[in-house]
């Protein structure tokens, strides 16, 4: 390849990059001034949709690589399900989209955020509460679920089904009516630094899921902390579990106090007899 060809190639790559930058646009959505789905429909891959503070009642379907983001992190953006039988936000058949700082609620038969047949999707700093499932990842690969709150859901906080190579890191998946994090037929995922506390049943459950990395997670005050069934090759490191002690522990301590008194009485009496102060 000659010098001219190399220069041409570099120029061409610059032109392609510049064209890409030109295409990416920012669309703003404000409460009462259109809905998010309309903005999604109008957008092109690579576009950024900035959502201002407010409550939006709708179901959003994403099928292209766009970025859905709250206008600022202190601005509370709530998306409530209009149709409670559908997910609040569904990302289907997409590569490289992202959801950042969006709070979803009210999908009583589906998930707050559902990733279906998708890859390289990032869901971060969002919340998914009071849904059937908080965040569901189904038949999807290489997604990142980070720093989200999935609480008070009817079943699971975060649910991975037939999905692999995903990273679930720094999430709070607590106080759900069933499980904090549930992996079903999901292999090679990285489940790290999550808090799965105070769920009705399990903190983290692996069902027929292999070769996952479960590290640095907390599972306090669940019925069962970490459960693995019909799975193999999973690595567990530095996880913390504590059973639901808050009722039992004080009672145990009071009983211990009674026994401790009897022991003290015995020891002090013996000591006084030895010192000759009591007969």
């Amino acid at each position, binding site marked *: 390849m000659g010098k001219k060809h190399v220069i041409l190639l570099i120029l061409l790559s610059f032109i392609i990059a510049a064209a890409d930058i030109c295409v990416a646009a920012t669309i703003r959505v404000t409460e009462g001034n259109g809905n998010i789905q309309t903005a999604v429909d109008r957008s092109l891959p690579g576009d950024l949709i900035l959502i201002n503070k407010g409550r939006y009642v709708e179901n959003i379907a994403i099928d292209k690589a766009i970025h859905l983001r709250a206008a600022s992190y202190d601005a509370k953006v709530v998306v409530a399900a209009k149709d409670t039988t559908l997910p609040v936000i569904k990302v289907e058949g997409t590569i490289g989209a992202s959801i950042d700082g969006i709070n979803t609620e009210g999908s009583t038969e589906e998930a707050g955020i559902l990733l279906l047949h998708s890859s390289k999707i990032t869901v971060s700093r969002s919340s998914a509460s009071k849904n059937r499932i908080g965040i569901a990842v189904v038949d999807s690969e290489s997604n990142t679920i980070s720093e989200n709150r999935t609480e008070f859901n009817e079943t699971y906080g975060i649910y991975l089904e037939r999905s692999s190579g995903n990273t679930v890191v720094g999430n709070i998946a607590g106080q759900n009516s069933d499980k904090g994090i549930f992996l079903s037929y999901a292999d090679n995922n990285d489940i790290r630094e999550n808090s799965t506390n105070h769920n009705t049943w399990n903190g983290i459950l692996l069902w027929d899921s292999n070769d996952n990395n479960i590290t640095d997670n*907390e599972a306090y005050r669940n019925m069962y902390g970490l459960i693995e069934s019909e799975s193999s090759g999973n690595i567990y490191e530095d996880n913390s579990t504590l059973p639901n002690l808050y009722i039992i522990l*004080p009672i145990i*301590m*009071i009983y211990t*106090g*009674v026994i401790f008194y009897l022991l*003290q*009485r015995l020891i*002090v009496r013996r000591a*006084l007899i030895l010192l000759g102060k009591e007969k």
Partner: protein
Amino acid sequence: MDILIKIPMILASIGLVLATSSFISGLQLIKVKRSSVDGIIHRINGYCSVVLLSSVAISSFIINGIHLWAFLGWVSALGLISLKISIVRRRSRRAFKYVSWIGASMILIWLYVLITNIPL
């Protein structure tokens, strides 16, 4: 688990054990007029409880910072202990009638401290 979260729970558990033992020995002291054994147990457990309560309060301030209601709560608890000690030292017969109630409320204080310090 963060050790800072664990320590107050352990201290509060020990505190509840001591408060229970102290309460029983206190009741024995009221029932039996001269019982040096129960007197020693009551005094040792009482002093240890004060030290433990102060330690839990300090560790709470270190972990959570100083908030008005929490501060008032700790001051009230320590105030209640001081009241009990002062009543016992006065040896007033009328006041002695109510000392067992203060002793029982010490168990309730430790119960509250323990329940709030079990990490979520």
